[in-house]
């Protein structure tokens, strides 16, 4: 096989312009005999539809999450896709899982080169737990009540019997529906686009409600609506000097939540409020985000340079009416400083990038970006009421956090040889924050990379570098005002040194029809100046991927991934020097394998995929008071087998059989044995660790309509 020299990608831009000139020269090519009589252009309509049924062996929130197969039973399967092509108009449609809670339908069409449009609808089920139950009833969308005659007790132990009698299943789940409509109009170099999207998210999630020293995990109903509008205008130009574009955009995201509060009755004896008032939690307030953006880019082929700039200016507003300090009329609470937040955040983002190839074998890149979040929300003193009973007496000021963040990146590539490229880069990040322990933070990063590609089928990359994150000072006095131990160093603010490296190798020898790749990465963080908090973190990951084209009609693969995330943190129970240390280690291993055989006896396709993944989290805590304490491992194990068999009985008709086996099991000490009344001061929802084993068997027919089956 002829081998071409490796050419930097920047040539793409230059050659692109040259190629554009070639296309223009089509006028000089005599195409009078190019009648395309052998071209099977699409005309008329075609479609490919699937109708079938699946039997699900067991309930499983884990399997049902996103897929829609959450309960035992039989589900109809209806999928399809198709197109209709006229002389000037095209339509395409896709239907997926129409009979499931994860249904999707899309229609797109238009006159190619002139305009296009798209409508889409998707439902996305989120299934968190189907083992939960609650004593709370929901008489209204924003209210949770206790059963009549509920006798509050100081602990769950004392109320165990009535909890047991009152518990009703309450799954933690939600359903998101997304409606999308949009289109583009093209005229000359102009392109106008407009998109509208509505997301409705409704369901139940767990939210802790607390008063005094007791808490209850509440099955909080929610009903959110988010509307998004995205409008763009773009002009692309091309001249002898080069080519470029200018674009303008406007984006709006409007979030609404009809429920401003969740009112709930406290089941514990210490409660001072009983129904109908109950306690009140604030729900997510309505908010609106709008952003105007402008961007431009230009390719200057004469100096082998691409330049792009962009700016975006946004505003976030939130002005939902506040709840009162308390719903307890017995407390003589002060009037609120204002009745709503009148919150306003201005966001600013700038970016600039230049990519150039000033001399042969060299590519340089410079980029800069700046992000600002300027929270202009007014500050006031708030004299809160503690657990709806006691005036705090120590008014607190709200803290509108703001930051400015910038990043400068410089990098260059140099081809030492046709097969060897050296790259190096430098990056500087600056973050300035308001109202936090660290006002100014700077991180410098340097890296180098070597890529060796001795022949097209083999590539080897090795990359390494380090960074140092420095701070002006860690303001302990400020930290203490928030009650923090002055020795604490929050990990995203602290001084840090990082070393990192990565290695990848890929090989696809054409003679063997085998492809393989290996990747390894490593990062090590050292928080050398932190006396409390995170002091060390290390992450490593390895993966191996093998693919084999056994014959023209059969392929097989296997991939293996191993990852480890370790950290060490220090704490002080005595609110002084460190007196305990915790070590975390998250390990993760995954194996995926499978094969595919097409056209067995010209009629049968078989595909088998199997995934095994397991995660293990180890926590070891060693304290001066209690000694070493090792937690049981947190474990997750997933086995997922998918088999698909397709039998073509004719050009148009296909019989499909699918089998899926999934087992998902977790060992989780945070849930194991935690029945609703297991924690004396917390009435929980009793979520259990997953232990799901599910088999899905599906059978159906696929029928191709119109002028031919899909390729």
């Amino acid at each position, binding site marked *: 096989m002829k081998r071409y020299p490796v050419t930097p990608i920047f040539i793409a831009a230059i050659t692109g312009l040259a190629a554009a000139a070639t296309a223009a020269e089509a006028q000089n090519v005599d195409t009078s005999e190019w009648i*395309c009589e052998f071209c099977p252009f699409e005309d008329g309509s075609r479609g490919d539809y699937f109708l079938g049924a699946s039997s699900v062996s067991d309930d499983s929130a884990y399997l049902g999450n996103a897929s829609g197969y959450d309960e035992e039973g039989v589900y109809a399967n209806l999928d399809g896709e198709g197109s209709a092509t006229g002389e000037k108009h095209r339509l395409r449609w896709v239907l997926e899982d129409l009979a499931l809670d994860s249904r999707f339908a899309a229609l797109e069409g238009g006159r190619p080169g002139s305009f296009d449009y798209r409508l889409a609808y998707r439902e996305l089920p989120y299934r968190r737990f189907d083992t939960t139950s609650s004593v709370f009833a929901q008489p209204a969308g924003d209210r949770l009540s206790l059963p009549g005659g509920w006798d509050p007790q100081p602990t769950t132990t004392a109320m165990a019997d009535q909890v047991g009698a009152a518990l009703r299943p309450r799954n933690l789940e939600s359903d998101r529906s997304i409606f999308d409509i949009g289109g583009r109009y093209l005229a000359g170099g102009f392109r106008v686009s407009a998109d509208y999207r509505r997301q409705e998210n409704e369901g139940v999630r767990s939210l802790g409600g607390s008063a005094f020293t007791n808490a209850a995990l509440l099955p909080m109903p929610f009903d959110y609506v988010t509307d998004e509008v995205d409008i763009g205008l773009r002009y692309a130009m091309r001249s002898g000097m080069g080519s470029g574009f200018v674009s303008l955009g406007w984006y709006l995201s409007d979030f609404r939540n009809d429920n401003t509060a969740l009112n709930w009755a406290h089941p514990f004896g210490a409660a001072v409020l009983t129904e109908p008032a109950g306690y009140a939690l604030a729900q997510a307030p309505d908010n609106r985000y709008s952003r105007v953006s402008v961007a431009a880019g230009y390719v200057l082929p004469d100096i082998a340079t691409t330049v792009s700039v962009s700016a975006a200016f946004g505003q976030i507003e939130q002005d939902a009416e506040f709840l009162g300090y308390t719903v307890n009329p017995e407390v003589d609470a002060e009037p609120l400083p204002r009745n709503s937040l009148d919150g306003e955040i201005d966001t600013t983002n700038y970016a600039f990038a230049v990519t150039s190839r000033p001399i042969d074998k060299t590519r340089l890149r410079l980029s800069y970006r700046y992000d600002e979040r300027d929270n202009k929300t007014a500050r006031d003193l708030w004299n809160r009421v503690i657990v709806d009973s006691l005036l705090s007496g120590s008014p607190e000021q709200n803290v509108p956090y703001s930051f400015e963040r910038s990043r400068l990146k410089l990098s260059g590539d140099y081809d030492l040889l046709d097969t060897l490229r050296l790259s190096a880069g430098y990056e500087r990040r600056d973050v300035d924050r308001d109202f936090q322990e660290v006002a100014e933070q700077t991180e410098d990063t340097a890296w180098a990379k070597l890529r060796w590609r001795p022949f097209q089928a083999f590539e080897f990359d090795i990359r390494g570098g380090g960074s140092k994150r420095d701070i002006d000072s860690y303001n302990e006095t400020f930290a203490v005002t928030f009650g923090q131990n002055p020795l604490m160093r929050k990990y*995203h603010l602290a001084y840090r040194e990082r070393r990192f490296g990565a290695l990848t190798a890929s090989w696809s020898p054409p003679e063997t029809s085998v492809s393989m790749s290996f990747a390894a990465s490593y990062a090590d963080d050292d928080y050398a100046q932190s006396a409390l908090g995170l002091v060390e973190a290390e992450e490593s990951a390895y993966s191996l991927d093998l693919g084999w084209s056994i014959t023209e009609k059969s392929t097989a693969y296997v991939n293996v991934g191993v990852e480890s995330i370790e950290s060490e943190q220090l704490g002080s129970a005595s609110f002084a020097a460190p007196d305990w240390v915790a070590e975390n280690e998250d390990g993760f291993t995954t194996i995926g394998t499978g094969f595919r055989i097409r056209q067995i006896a010209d009629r049968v396709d078989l595909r088998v995929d199997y995934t095994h993944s397991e995660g293990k989290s180890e926590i070891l*805590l060693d304290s001066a008071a209690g000694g070493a304490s090792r937690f049981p491992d947190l474990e997750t194990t997933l086995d997922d087998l998918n088999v698909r068999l397709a039998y073509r009985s004719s050009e148009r008709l296909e019989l499909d059989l699918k089998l899926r086996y999934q087992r998902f099991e977790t060992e989780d000490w945070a849930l194991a044995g935690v029945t609703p009344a297991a924690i004396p001061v917390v009435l929980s929802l009793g979520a259990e660790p997953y232990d799901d084993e599910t088999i899905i068997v599906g059978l159906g027919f696929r029928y191709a309509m119109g002028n031919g089956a899909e390729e």
Partner: protein
Amino acid sequence: MRLAVSAASLALLALVVAGSAGGQESEYTRKGADTCLSCHEEQTTLALFRGKHAVPSDPRSPFGHGQLQCEACHGPGGPHSGRVRRGQERPPIIGFGNDKPTPVAQQNAMCLTCHDGDMGFGWQNDAHAGGEVACADCHVSHTGSDPVLKTSTQPEQCYECHVQTKTRMRKAFTHPLTDGKMDCSSCHAVHGDAVDSDLLHVTINDTCQTCHAELRGPFLWEHAPVSEDCGLCHAPHGSNHPGLLSKRGPLLCQSCHSQSGHPSFAFESDGLASEMPSQYLLGQNCMNCHSQVHGSNHPSGSGLMR
């Protein structure tokens, strides 16, 4: 000597013929796509006619009126389609994909001839471009349905190179990519963008809040890291811990919170359900009470409990 004269005459004749043929024109095939399809009649080639690249009514399409059909992308195919002597290698045309000898830059240049506008010039600054990823490494043009443009099949395409992300997406708690209900481009601008980021929106929080807008605030009582970067607590590509948290509570919270009293206590394994069940470890640990970790809009909610 006679042989040399004959050879020179033939060469001269060839030059004259080439000149009269009109320079560039001679490099193209005589009948355009019909020439190509007379040999390349396999289904994988013909699948082109199901897609947007073969629409005669679209003047921008390679098969629009007066366009160069197959040769618009594959380059002039005259020599390739001509006769070759036995044993002689057929002159190559521009091929697409990592199994083709055409340099990546040349492959991409052909695509960018038409698609530079779609790329927003972010492509030139993008890590994919810098890494010499070919358009055809991800995209299939000879099809009516490009897998990388379809939510249910896109992630597998990306995983071809992003193997470690593929692994992470198999962790117990992830976004629903494995089920084909979300794709990489739900969050990532895979062609790069002018703002030097691989994210769909200008910051990571803007991107997350496209779907999680309820967390946007601003709240009366904010949690500082939430307003700055969701990734400080969450691992968006997958985690062993529920909620895509990067670490299990209460230790995650105690990485930053050291106030006197329970925030700084060492919660040991004797607080598990089998011994002395602890509200600081079990259920939702810290969030049993401090449930409004993303911010509270309650006037009495400064402790993120209301």
